[in-house]
């Protein structure tokens, strides 16, 4: 069901939230998507103080477990935060509750957001509703599958490289990463601050537009948050794309299978029929190839510093007793998986005085060149599009978060929009070898309205709106 249609009586609203919670529990053995189920009684009680016309009135939602919820366990799927009870709400939690949303649970993620598979969660892998032998994708995997399996219409995630947009592609749903600064990050456990974005999943473009109306807006506690007014994205997402200029990244299309090419070309023809101007554009291949390295270096350098606060002293799981060094070392050794400690070592290596020029600063310079290349295209076009992946979700045992030697441009390019901060989203459109694949759309900074409008046109021609993959 579309969440904007949910204008229900209070009783119906209550039942709906409880049903969603029950369903979340019922699918848990199959999907393993939840870290914590929340009590809803008090939240439903609080609804009495909220206008029934509030945008998300009574809406059951789930939050990725790196979003702080006061008094409710928030682990970021890491052992070191296995007992962390936040003393404050993330800015967006306050906003969602003020809009009438009911948080039914916290979802599994790659540990501290540092992965793309959801295999590294402390609570184990999350399974894909389309094939339980396949990954959900990550790092916002739990939230993605709760939306695709029809438990909730809307779920919060975060996106540092493609952590919302990739799982959205694997799960046949919409994944949105708005402009950097559009949504406050206050209270969201970071990964890499200059790349981190709050993002979310829905099953319709209209819901995606509505969600941003609730989430966006200036927050003085996040000095990077934007003052630009929040627009009426729902009203603007008409699907009218006459004259809208769309660039399809040729470098990526060249690598696509015939099956995917055919479906992509069909969609582009349908957009042309609506009056859009669609052209294939070749981007600088060397820069596209460098995306993964730029992302890997910057994200790990920032992450190792960001997570230095996790030392077992003021919060978190504490081991050791002999000395503070003993406590920090044992807590951090037991608290982080091998993968995370490995990333921290690499990040710290990149920050070291003697390496910074060759690693961090070099990556930051190439970041600029990649962004300039994107802006060259966005200077001529309203949107850049390409498949979010050339394939559906990989099998659980055929993937890992090891750094790859292969230069898979098509699997790694979406982090460009994290470099530039430009709004970017994935929308369902294709099926490859029987599995869903989404189309990625990236527009200029703060042009979410234009992005949703193009997405609406795509949704209109694919008819892929409110698609649910039941697992029960």
């Amino acid at each position: 069901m579309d969440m904007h249609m949910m204008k229900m009586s209070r009783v119906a609203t209550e039942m709906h939230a409880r049903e969603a919670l029950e369903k979340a529990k019922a699918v848990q053995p199959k999907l393993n998507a939840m870290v914590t189920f929340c009590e809803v009684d008090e939240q439903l009680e609080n609804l009495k103080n909220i206008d029934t016309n509030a945008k998300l009135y009574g809406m059951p939602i789930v939050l990725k477990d790196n979003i702080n919820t006061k008094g409710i366990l928030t682990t970021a799927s890491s052992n070191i935060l296995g007992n962390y009870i936040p003393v404050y709400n993330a800015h967006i939690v306050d906003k969602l509750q003020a809009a009438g949303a009911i948080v039914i649970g916290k979802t599994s993620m790659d540990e501290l957001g540092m992965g793309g598979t959801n295999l590294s969660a402390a609570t184990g892998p999350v399974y894909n509703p389309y094939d339980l032998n396949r990954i959900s994708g990550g790092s916002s995997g739990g939230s993605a599958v709760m939306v695709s399996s029809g438990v909730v219409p809307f779920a919060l995630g975060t996106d540092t490289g493609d952590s919302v947009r990739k799982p959205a592609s694997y799960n046949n749903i919409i994944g949105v990463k708005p402009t950097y600064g559009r949504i406050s990050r206050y209270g969201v456990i970071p990964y890499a601050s200059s790349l981190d974005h709050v993002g979310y999943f829905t099953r319709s473009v209209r819901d995606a537009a509505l969600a941003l109306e609730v989430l966006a807006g200036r927050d003085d506690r996040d000095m990077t948050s934007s003052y630009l007014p929040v627009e009426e994205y729902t009203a603007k997402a008409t699907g009218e794309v006459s004259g809208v200029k769309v660039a399809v990244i040729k470098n990526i299309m060249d690598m696509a299978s015939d099956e995917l090419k055919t479906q992509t070309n069909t969609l582009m023809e349908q957009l042309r029929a609506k009056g859009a101007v669609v052209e294939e554009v070749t981007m600088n291949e060397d820069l596209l190839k460098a995306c993964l390295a730029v992302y890997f270096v910057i994200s790990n350098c920032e992450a190792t510093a960001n997570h230095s606060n996790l030392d077992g002293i003021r919060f978190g799981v504490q081991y050791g007793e002999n000395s503070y060094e003993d406590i920090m070392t044992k807590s951090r050794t037991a608290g982080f998986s091998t993968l995370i400690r490995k990333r921290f070592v690499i990040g710290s290596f990149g920050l070291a005085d003697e390496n910074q020029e060759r690693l961090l600063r070099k990556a930051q310079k190439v970041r600029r060149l990649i962004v300039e290349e994107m802006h060259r295209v966005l200077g001529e076009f309203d949107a850049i599009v390409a498949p979010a992946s050339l394939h559906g979700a990989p099998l659980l045992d055929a993937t890992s978060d090891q750094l790859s030697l292969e230069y898979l441009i098509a699997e790694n390019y979406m982090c460009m929009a994290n470099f530039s901060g430009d709004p970017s989203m994935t929308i369902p459109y294709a099926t490859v070898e029987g599995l869903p694949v989404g189309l990625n759309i990236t527009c200029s900074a703060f042009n979410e309205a234009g992005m949703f409008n193009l997405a609406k046109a795509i949704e209109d021609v694919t008819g892929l709106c409110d698609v649910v993959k039941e697992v029960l």
Partner: protein
Amino acid sequence: MNFETVIGIELHCELKTKTKMFSSAPVSFGARSNSCVNEIDLGHPGTLPCLNKKAVELAIRACTATNCTIDSLVKFDRKNYYYTDLPKGFQITQQFHPIGSNGYVIIDVEGEQKKVRLNRIHMEEDTAKQFHYSDGTYVDYNRSGIPLIEIVTEADMRSGKEAAAYVEKMRNILYYLGVSDGKMEEGSMRCDVNVSIRPVGSEKFGTKTEIKNLNSISNVQKAIEVEVERQKEEIEAGREIIQATYRFDEATRKTVMMRKKEGAVDYKYFPEPNIFPIQLDLNWIKKIQEEMPEVPEQRKARYEKEYGLSEYDISVLIANKDVSDFYDAVMKHTTNAKLAANWVITELLSILNKNNVDITNAKIQPVHLASMVDMIAKDEISGKQAKEVFVDVVEGKDPKAVIEAKGMKQVSDSSALLAIINSVLDEQPQSIQDYKNGKDRAIGFLVGQVMKKSKGQANPKMTNQLLLQEIAKR
């Protein structure tokens, strides 16, 4: 061999703000432990820094008073290290773009003026406070996140005396500007000193040692002097100076090595991604500079020009801003500048010292001292009476009320005085005769008689004058 001492100083000063550098939790001394913190000061996951405008304003004042070039594009960086007093595992500081650079102050040492160059002034945040007890280290995060400026000099000082003069100068400036309390004993100003020696005439710097956490200006001087002696002994004994961090042990008057410095520590500095560069409004900076409180030099000039006070009086008054502020408050109510200065410096300070009362806590009202000073100037009370009255004025009483209550008012009404004088003259014809025969002392006796009759309330000057006038008539 003759050696030259080379000294550079780093001062960390806590800024006088109501809230922390990057969080809106309160800054409050002596509050219950861990009662002045929020999630940001504890380094909880998901927190983000938010810069305090007042801290920037105070840093600008400090930069302005020390002739620094101000960088109006404010940027912050992370300094990464792990320690129990550092909640985030990094300190937010200004490594690459300090707000102030290339400044100087002029210090006075034994009548000589000397320029000390400042390399930089940068903003950063304080760490938590730790208390080491036998059963463990107790951590209080109230200090965590308090705004600091770090002021770094060039290696321009050449003696412990110069170093002490510099620290005193900076403390005075910062206190006058309302930038910092500058209380070294309480840690709101902390001083680290870099010391080396080299043969006189040598251009090359010797190996330096750092003396940390000096808690008073006198200890700055003492610590440097003993450290210089220690270094001389080492060199004269043919040993190398080891680069290390020392502390000053007051009891033994020795510098004690804390740890060797083995290679430079790599703090892995990088720009703080959560704070975009902030362009300060140039008009705002200008306004701050125009509305800056007086620094000691400016006040000194004003006292010379407007009040004509002596150099000694000025130096005593401005040595303590609170005393000088009190004097300024007195001067709002009187024009008798020199007399007021005398009373503040000699009478008031000695009473306060004796009673061990700080002038900021004293009960005396500036307006009361002003009115007493005016009465003295107008001969309404004698100096001797004033001293008696002042005992009560110090306790917060109005001198007029005190004089009234004690019936001390001088008789300056000439008709009343004439009556007393004439009755004395009538009683003392011999003295009149003596005076007329050239015995000048007789007049003193007659004044005494008038005083006696008036119960000490006769205005002595008028009495003298009127006596002469009345004798002449006889």
